[in-house]
């Protein structure tokens, strides 16, 4: 029970799941990998900077079609769509990664302490977290960006912090429930019986057990956070266009173009969002199906009844 999930074993188990689940997982890894490359190598892949409207003093055309200079055309703000899509990967992964990291850093210890100590502290925290959880996540993000806009402006950090608040309760719930279950497990009881102090028990025994579920929630939350980030941008409440390239913002700019029948400014950033969310979801679901035995389905070898020996 106490065993930690070693990476090779996880991959082994994924490999052994039935065909479809395996290919969906690998597809997810591939898609996510492509976007990580975009994010890391954005300055080299993108022909222009995300806030660049001219080259050598010559302004870009407005709403131009695809051409040699502008692979996917330009949008209504004279930006190069292809460059903004590539740079957007960097913004998206940065904000999402930051917010998932922050919410795990807050949510996991809070869940362990709450689940392990129990009592009033536990009850109150659970009640508060449930209230936070039951609240529409976009609404929460809107309220937070509303508050943070006054305090720290509309940059990447503000966006990441707005998202963090949404995902803390998710880690808290899962980690707390696992902790409560682990606390009753025999090996933890044994550790307490031999007099290990609570901090040691939490760190050495409970944490190792609980931490397994974090990657699954992490990837699934990352997919969700990406959608929320884009939604904030679309509502005009996210990252300011001068701070970074953000897909959701570009989509909101494209609203009028769409009514006029111009498709490129809306199509490409949206496609990027879908692809990355799908990739992350596939990875998360693959991990989930593999680590959750109730959903797992092994690859069965077909039974061939061998002929009977002797007559």
């Amino acid at each position, binding site marked *: 029970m106490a065993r930690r999930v070693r990476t090779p074993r996880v991959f082994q188990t994924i490999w052994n799941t039935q065909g479809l689940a395996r290919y969906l997982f690998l597809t997810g890894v591939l898609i996510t990998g492509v976007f990580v490359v975009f994010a890391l190598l954005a300055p080299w892949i993108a022909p222009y900077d995300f806030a660049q409207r001219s080259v050598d003093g010559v302004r870009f055309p407005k709403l131009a079609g695809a051409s040699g200079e502008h692979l996917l055309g330009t949008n209504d703000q004279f930006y190069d769509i292809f460059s903004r899509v590539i740079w957007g990967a960097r913004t998206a992964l940065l904000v999402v990664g930051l917010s998932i990291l922050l919410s795990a850093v807050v949510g996991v210890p809070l869940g362990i302490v709450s689940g392990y100590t129990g009592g009033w502290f536990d009850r109150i925290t659970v009640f508060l977290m449930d209230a936070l959880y*039951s609240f529409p996540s976009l609404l929460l993000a*809107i309220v937070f960006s509303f508050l943070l806009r006054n305090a720290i402006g509309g940059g990447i950090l503000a966006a990441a912090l707005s998202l963090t608040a949404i995902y803390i309760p998710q880690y808290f719930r899962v980690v707390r429930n696992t902790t409560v279950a682990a606390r009753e497990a025999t090996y933890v009881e044994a550790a307490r019986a031999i007099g290990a102090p609570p901090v040691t028990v939490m760190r050495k025994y409970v944490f190792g057990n609980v931490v397994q579920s974090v990657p699954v929630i992490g990837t699934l939350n990352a997919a969700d956070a990406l959608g929320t980030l884009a939604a904030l941008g679309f509502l005009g409440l996210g990252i300011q266009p001068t701070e970074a390239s953000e897909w959701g913002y570009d989509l909101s700019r494209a609203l009028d173009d769409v009514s006029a029948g111009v498709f490129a400014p809306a199509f490409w950033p949206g496609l990027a969002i879908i692809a990355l969310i799908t990739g992350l979801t596939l990875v998360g679901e693959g991990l989930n199906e593999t680590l959750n035995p109730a959903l797992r389905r092994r690859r069965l070898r077909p039974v061939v009844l061998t002929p009977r020996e002797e007559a």
Partner: protein
Amino acid sequence: MSTVTASGSLPRYIAVRLMLVIPMMWVLLTMVFVLLRIAPGDPVSAAVGDKLSEDALDARRAALGLDRPLIVQYLDYLGDVCRLDFGTTISNGRPVLDIIANQGGATLTLTLGAFLFALVVGLPLGRLAGRRRDSALDAGIRIFGIVTYAAPIFWVGLMLVLFVVRFVPSWPTYDIATAETKYLVPDRTGILLLDAALDNDWVGVRDVLQHHVLPCFTLGLLICGVIIRLVRVNVIQSLKGDYVEAARARGIPERRVVRFHAFRNALVPVVTVIGLQFALTLSGAILTERTFNWPGLGTELVAYVTARDYVAVQGLVTFFAIAVVLVSLIVDIVNALIDPRVRY
């Protein structure tokens, strides 16, 4: 589980559940208050600071009670909410309750229509995928589920608009009705569709329904993806249930086993989670409204957030919090109707 429990009564369960609404409501309202009050800076100057003199601003603050101690403001807030007074906006002096009464109907018909569409499409598809697990059909349905969930709802909306603008140019792609219908239909209930029907204005009803098609379809797709995933997983799990094997051992036809044993039991957790999805629906509705220029509460909220109108945002968020609590109450009661074990 193994002990004999007294046959629980539904009325008693509902009474207990109703009493739980009060602490839930209190916690959410407190949360809204705390969140909006820890905001650094001064709400009045944020909203209208550039328009008024310093004295006028002070007068505004005093009128809103912002100069009083926090605890008094908190109790005032709770008291006002109990009287259904959500405050008056700073930026344009509208009572928030008026906004809810005038714009709430559009949000309501949008979400209901979307939910209806999602249930009609999502339940059968999810069941089919769960039953034919790992078949090509399952793969197709799952990918559909994942993509509809992954696709940002506003992008789906935009693509639909693009499509419609190109191929059916006469179909309405924004707003809840034409200006003519809005002008002709008298306001009685705040729900335009109902008002038009009450007025026997069938041209108006048709017009409003046509305007609903694209937004409801867009929002419905999002909910549909969630429902498909949920139903699929739950059908798979309940098909492994002991009572399913026992039913097969009694020779109950497979179709009936799937429908009455696996599917019905799979629906119990689905109802709960669909209730939680109300929050998702609300989030989706805000985005759909912006996409289709829909005159609903989401549009209002975004406008007031942009205007930095603190009172309006607090009032609208409070209203959404109350809606969340009430929906969770309804979900729990529906759950008790389906599952006899819930009635303790």
